[in-house]
């Protein structure tokens, strides 16, 4: 394998537009050289932005690095380019498993199986999702989740995600300021009652239910969402994360929070 890596690296150096970066990135990934694999995949993606395999490779490396949000985006992009991309379908199924959305995971695996009926990996994962063959289904709703795992698998679960009840009590997640200090309790205290106030404001205006509150700060952005009528979710990121992306992150976190709240009702 090291020889093959050397050979492929040499080929890529000679022809930077070559598609050998796909094989090279995968080999490096398998060897656990994730930083190098990441560089190779990213450079390849910059040269071939419309190649679904490039997005798939990059997503797999991101997933190995536990950067699930960006992995989701890359697999999602691969599917937009090639709706039948088996790697992307399997990848998204994996991520849906991670957040406990077994239904979506199974739907993606079924789509993958329609495209690749002989893929044993797909069949095995699908059986797992359906709870067949004695295997336990990966279903957070069926398996009580620990409180600390409310945001399991989500980026920033212990520093930028917070789930509160109506009184400002912390239900899950944690928050750190840019200096690394734990500010969970202080922020939770200030946010107590925000959900009700937002609800009153939109009711006064006749705007239906409130669905989110996005705020831009000098040093970072926050997004608040109501996963239920008496709970509040807070997502905090630095200014490098655009507001639109933050809204997507918040949507995913709200889904995880909603499931957790339902399981603990």
């Amino acid at each position: 394998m090291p020889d093959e890596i050397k050979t492929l690296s040499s080929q890529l150096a000679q022809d930077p537009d070559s598609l050998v970066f796909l094989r090279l990135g995968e080999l490096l990934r398998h060897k656990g050289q994730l930083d190098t694999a990441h560089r190779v995949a990213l450079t390849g993606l910059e040269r071939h932005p419309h190649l679904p395999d490039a997005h798939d490779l990059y997503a797999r490396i991101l997933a190995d690095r536990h950067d699930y949000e960006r992995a989701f985006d890359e697999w999602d992009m691969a599917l937009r380019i090639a709706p039948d991309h088996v790697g992307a379908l399997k990848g998204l199924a994996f991520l849906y498993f991670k957040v406990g959305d077994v239904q979506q995971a199974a739907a993606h695996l079924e789509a993958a199986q329609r495209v690749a009926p002989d893929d044993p990996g797909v069949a095995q994962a699908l059986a797992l999702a359906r709870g067949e063959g004695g295997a336990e289904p990966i279903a957070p709703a069926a398996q009580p989740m620990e409180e600390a795992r409310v945001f399991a698998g989500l980026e920033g679960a212990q520093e930028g995600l917070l789930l509160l009840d109506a009184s400002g009590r912390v239900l899950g997640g944690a928050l750190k300021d840019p200096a690394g200090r734990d500010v969970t309790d202080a922020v939770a205290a200030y946010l107590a009652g925000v959900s009700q106030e937002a609800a009153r404001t939109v009711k006064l205006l006749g705007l239906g239910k409130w669905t989110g509150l996005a705020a831009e700060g000098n040093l970072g952005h926050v997004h608040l969402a109501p996963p239920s009528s008496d709970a509040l979710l807070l997502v905090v990121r630095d200014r490098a994360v655009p507001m639109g992306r933050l809204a997507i992150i918040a949507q995913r976190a709200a889904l995880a929070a909603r499931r957790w709240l339902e399981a603990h009702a």
Partner: protein
Amino acid sequence: MTAPAAAYGKALDLITRVRGVRGAMLVSAEDGIVVAEQLMEGIKGPALSALAASLATRLRRAMEAAGVGASVFWHLQAEQGALLVVPTPGGTLVVAVAEPDVNVGLVRLELLRAAEVVG
């Protein structure tokens, strides 16, 4: 507040010209009192200003505690519309009430421009 009262109307004009904006107002962040308003009929200015100021205070404190600094712009999203707010350094909230399909980026820009006028 540094701008003369005549400038307030002009600042609000900037915002209400945007398609999908149902009204705009200037609110004292400290006490939630209406400073100036251009609202469509049916919107209760005094009640809205009080709620917007209260929300702004909670949000500012939470954001400062979280270390993300002072709020520059916030956007309360609802099923049938939105409330968009820019706090000014002088203690005024520039507020817009909008339809759900409004161009948020454009409203944000006009709110920021109006905030410069108001000071």
